[in-house]
Structure formats: C-alpha cells, structure tokens
C-alpha cells in the first residue's frame, strides 16, 4: 500500500481537499487528537496488525469470496458482473471490518465502554458483537423510528448484551442517533470509545474507517486479477455515509482506467425532496465533525433524508467521497426505492442471493452499466450486506402480509 500516492490524503488536519476536518466541541478535541495518535501508531504496529488479521480470518471469515454472477450477466446481456461477497462476513455485512479494528483500538487505549450509533442496526449489531467478544460494555443509540422498523436487529443487539438507547430528539433517525452518541461522548470522556460506523465524523474517523474497510478493495483487486487476468473496468458500490464504497475504491484509486461508481439513495426520486443523495442533491456544509456535502435548507438547517433502506438514510456523506466527486475521480449515480426493490428481487431470483436493500441500490445501476459497457466489460460490485434484515420491510412494500 505504500506505493499508493493517495496515502497522503487526508493531510495532517484531516482534510481531503476542502472536505473533512474536525468540527467538534472543544471538550472532544483533546480526545480525537489522542485517538489520531493512537490510530497512526496502531496501524503500523505488527502486533496490532497480526491480531487484526487473525480475527478477520477466524472470526469474520475473511477473505470473502468474489463470485461471477453469471445469470445476472446473461440477463443484462452486457458486461461480466462479479460480486465481492462481503455479505458473507460474520454478522452479515461489511460493518464488522471496521468495528473489529475500532474495538481493538479502544482496548489498546484502555477504554472500557463502547458507544455506537446505528440506523438499520447493522453497525449496532456488529459493534455489539465485537464488544461481546471482548467483554466490553456497549451502548447503542438508535432513532426511535428506526427501532420500530428494525425490530429483529434491536433484539439481536439486546441478546448480545448491548444497551439500546432510543433517540426521540430531532426526527428520531440516524442523524439524531449520531447527535446523541456525540452528546454521550462529551459526557463520558474518560472511559468511552465512540465507534463511528461510517467513513465520516471528525478526523481521524474518515481515514481510520477507510483504512479498516479497504481490506475489501485489497482482497477484491487481487482476486479479480487472479480470476480474470486483469483489472475491472468499473467498481460499483452503494453509498450512505460511504464506508463500503471507500473500502472498495481506495485500493483502486491509482488505477486510472478503473471507473469508480458510487450509487446514492434517490428515495422517492431526486425531485421529490424525499431522498438521501447528498452529493447529487446537497451542498457543502458542516455536520457531525466534518465539512462535506449535506442535504440542507436555504438557511443551513439540516434536512431529513429518506430511503427505503435505513442504512442509507443519512443527510451527509463521508468527506473523501465529496473530494473524489469534486475532482472527478469517482462518479456518483443514484437509484430510487422502486429500482432498489426491483434489483433486490431480480438478484434473489437469478442468483439465489438475497441482497440487503443497500447494495440493491448499487445493483440497480449495475444493469445499466453492464449494457452500456457491452460484452467486453468487467464490473466488480460490492455486495456489502445480506438481505435477511430487510425481509419484513420488503414484504411490507410488496403488500405481502407475513
């Protein structure tokens, strides 16, 4: 990885171009500065790396496979489509790659209490899982609306020993859960480690989460070269905060001929004002510790996001994506709730893989791209989560009573 010139980003102030930084109350500044030092040290410490690698292999089940989605490729009659199977990880999504690293770091820093925010519950489950594995106290903040629509994950977290705090402030969704987690952190500074679930927040979080998730792209790059003898023409991933996407993209940033394509949630349509497409429909602003593209009104108040997928239902995006967008290194498209539901069913029927609603958004655009690229094309998509958690929501949308 040392030959990757992109290792220079972010700069020492946590800036990706004009994005990122550390926009947090002074109470937290000394903590994030300490965290930054601890992370820079840990990530080059052979003992820490060995511990991570061992757990990624035996506990998470890495490396995850790459899989040639032959019937979907035939269906679209275009480019060859490969999935990176991160939905096969322990706990069913890419989230655990990040949680494992952050919880190990928390232990190294002598922190005894883990807090996390969660939307769909996947990050909460992954954090509660790793906290249980290491016997640490775990508190998860979750919007009251999300608790209602993600009951199975709430119960999983409780089984794992986590305490769930329902967040009723604001709109009772992911951004409010993150506000509340920050408030908790300000209050319990000495013993608490905040495990942020996406590649956003104050520096060093966007960098740390990218470093931890880039295991996805490192594996996938080697695997696809081994199987196909060449790099893909495009890497595609869904974007909420953007941690699975940056994890896939990062090891490819230097491969100038590989298109990097992120797919945001267009909800009920970009014109409807009910979407979660911060890059396509937002503008730069400051929230949750970083400067990045945000959905906001004409007075700088943060707008509510909407998506059928609770995991994409966030009005911001990781700052590195804002940067890659502005310099044109990555492309950002979007898919609506309806398109994601169609892709969800198509993938289930043709490949026998029930995708989470999040990657179903990516899949919705993969079809167009495959046709556009034609038979010689090669697409690598990150299947970042499995759809078991979404079965009830999908049934509801399809008008099926369970």
């Amino acid at each position, binding site marked *: 990885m040392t030959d990757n010139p992109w290792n220079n980003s972010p700069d020492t102030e946590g800036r990706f171009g004009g994005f990122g930084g550390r*926009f947090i109350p*002074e*109470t937290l500044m*000394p903590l994030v500065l300490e965290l930054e030092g601890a992370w820079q040290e840990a990530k080059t410490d052979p003992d820490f790396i060995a511990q991570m690698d061992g757990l990624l292999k035996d506990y998470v089940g890495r490396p995850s496979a790459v899989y040639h989605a032959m019937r979907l490729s035939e269906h679209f009659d275009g480019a060859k489509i490969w999935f990176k199977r991160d939905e096969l990880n322990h706990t069913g999504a890419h989230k655990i790659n990040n949680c494992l690293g952050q919880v190990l770091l928390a232990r190294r820093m002598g922190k005894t209490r883990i807090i996390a925010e969660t939307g769909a519950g996947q990050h909460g489950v992954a954090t509660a899982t790793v906290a249980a594995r290491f016997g640490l106290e775990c508190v998860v903040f979750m919007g009251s609306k999300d608790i209602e629509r993600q009951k199975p994950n709430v119960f999983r977290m409780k089984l794992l020993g986590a305490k769930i705090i329902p967040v009723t*402030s604001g709109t009772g969704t992911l951004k409010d859960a993150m506000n509340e987690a920050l408030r908790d952190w*300000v*209050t319990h500074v000495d013993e608490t480690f905040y495990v942020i679930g996406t590649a956003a927040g104050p520096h060093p979080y966007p960098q740390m989460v990218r470093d931890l998730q880039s295991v996805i792209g490192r594996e996938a790059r080697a695997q696809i070269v081994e199987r196909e003898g060449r790099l893909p023409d495009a890497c595609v991933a869904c974007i909420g905060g953007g941690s699975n996407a940056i994890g896939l993209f990062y090891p490819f940033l230097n491969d100038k001929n590989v298109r990097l394509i992120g797919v945001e949630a267009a909800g009920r349509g970009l014109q409807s004002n009910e979407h979660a497409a911060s890059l396509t429909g937002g503008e730069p602003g400051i929230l949750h510790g970083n400067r990045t593209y945000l959905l906001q009104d004409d007075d700088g108040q943060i707008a509510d996001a909407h998506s059928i997928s609770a995991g994409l239902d966030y009005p911001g995006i990781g700052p590195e994506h804002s940067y890659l967008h502005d310099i044109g290194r990555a492309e950002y498209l979007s898919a609506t709730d309806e398109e994601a539901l169609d892709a969800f069913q198509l993938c289930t029927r043709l490949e026998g893989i029930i995708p989470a609603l999040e990657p179903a958004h990516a899949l919705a655009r993969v079809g167009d791209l495959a046709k556009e690229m034609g038979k010689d094309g090669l697409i690598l998509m990150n299947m970042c989560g499995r759809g078991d958690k979404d079965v009830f929501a999908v049934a509801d949308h399809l008008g099926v009573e369970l």
Partner: protein
Amino acid sequence: MSISRIEAAFAKCANADHSAFVAYMMAGDPDLAQSRELLMGLPDAGADIVELGMPFSDPVAEGPTIQQAAQRSLLVRTKMQDVLALAADFREVHSDTPLILMGYANPVHHMGWSKFARLAAKSGVDGLIIVDLPPEESQPLAMALADNDIALIRLIAPTTKGARLQQVLSGVSGFVYYVSITGVTGAAIPDQQQVARAVKDIKLHTGLPVAVGFGVRDPQTAKTIADCADGVVVGSAIVSQMHKKGASSALELVKKLAEAAHGNI
C-alpha cells in the same frame, strides 16, 4: 466599538467588585415576538452581557432543554436573518450591553463567513461563540470577524489541558468561556473547587476575563461560581422558565440569578 463594549462591561463589574452575569436565551423561542420581549428586558433585569442562541437543527453540545428550544424556534421558521434583526432591535435600545451570538457552524458557513461577519457587525453584535468550531477550524471565520471588530470567543473545556490550553488561549479576544462540566448544557452541577482551579490555570495564560457556564442553573450555584470567575453564564434555566411561564417570569428568574451572581444574596 464592539470588542471594547465587552471589555467595558467586564471592567464595570470589576469596579463594582462583582462578577458579570451573562444570560443566554434562544432566538425565536417560542416565536420572534415573545423572544424579543425577553431579550429587550434582560439588561434591566440585571444581565451584564447577553448571549442570543441561533437555532440549529443538530445542536450536539446541548441538553434537552436547549435542543427543544431550538426545535420550537425552527418550527416557527426562524431564519438567520431574523436572529440578526433581533440583535439590531436590541442594539437600538441598549447601547452598552454586549450582545454575543451563540450557535453552530453550519448556518453561519452556509451564509458565508464574511457575509455573516458584516451583517452581524451591522446588527450591533459584539461577539460570536460557535460551539463546533475549535481553533483548528476557525481561521477563516476569525479573520472575517476581526475585520469587523467582533470577538470570536473560545471555549475551554475540562479536557483542555497542558500545551493545548496555551494553544487555544493564544489569539483569543473578548473573554474566555470555560465549560464547567464534561457534558451537555444544563446536564450536571459544576464542582466549585475544580472550576476555581481551572479558572486559575486559564488566567496563567491570558489577561482576558473568564466566564463560566454549562451547568449553572440556580441562584445558589450562580453565586458559588461567581465567587471564582469574572462572569457566570446561565442558559437552560432561563430557557426552561421562558418555555413554562413566559417572558415576564423568565425575567424574574434573571433578576434573582443576577443578584446572586452580583453577590447580593
């Protein structure tokens, strides 16, 4: 005369041998008219300095009381322009009492640092506190404010120690705001001994007055904190009284708090 207005207010209190009482309220809660009534009455009720909260949708450093006040304000569609208009109304009537705006970075950033600084100066604003803008990120705003003679007031927290304390205190203006607790506004009662030690440490690095806030909610605590600082800030208690009983009752509370802070109880 903006920054000097802050200096003069602290000097006046020092001459009278008491602390300054700083009263915080939320602009637009429950609506502009009622919040104007409270704002206008604060100096006569004994507030030496006024902090006017600018509502934000995601105030991460606030406890429930001020969070809900911001939500009520946004519900009646209070805009940044309305907050600045309130400030201008205040300045027209009260020429000596310093007026500080307090809020979060995004609405100010959205308007543009320079434009905001110009409009704030025009509205008679003397200082600005942006809770989520630590010194590392405040350079562009600090320059815009300096051009308009507005103080950028920095927060010092219990976690700010050693070399960082010195760094944060270099280049401050107006006064220093010491956050008396690790927590959100209105959350816990500050420990007087710990606050006294912190204020002493801060004063090793700066000649500016030090005001203390975040956990002060009753006259007794106001008096205890006033004994060890140049100023004492009360927010949540006033906001809560305003919400429950209205402006005149909130002003009654301000009177009691100010008397306590001034050592008259």
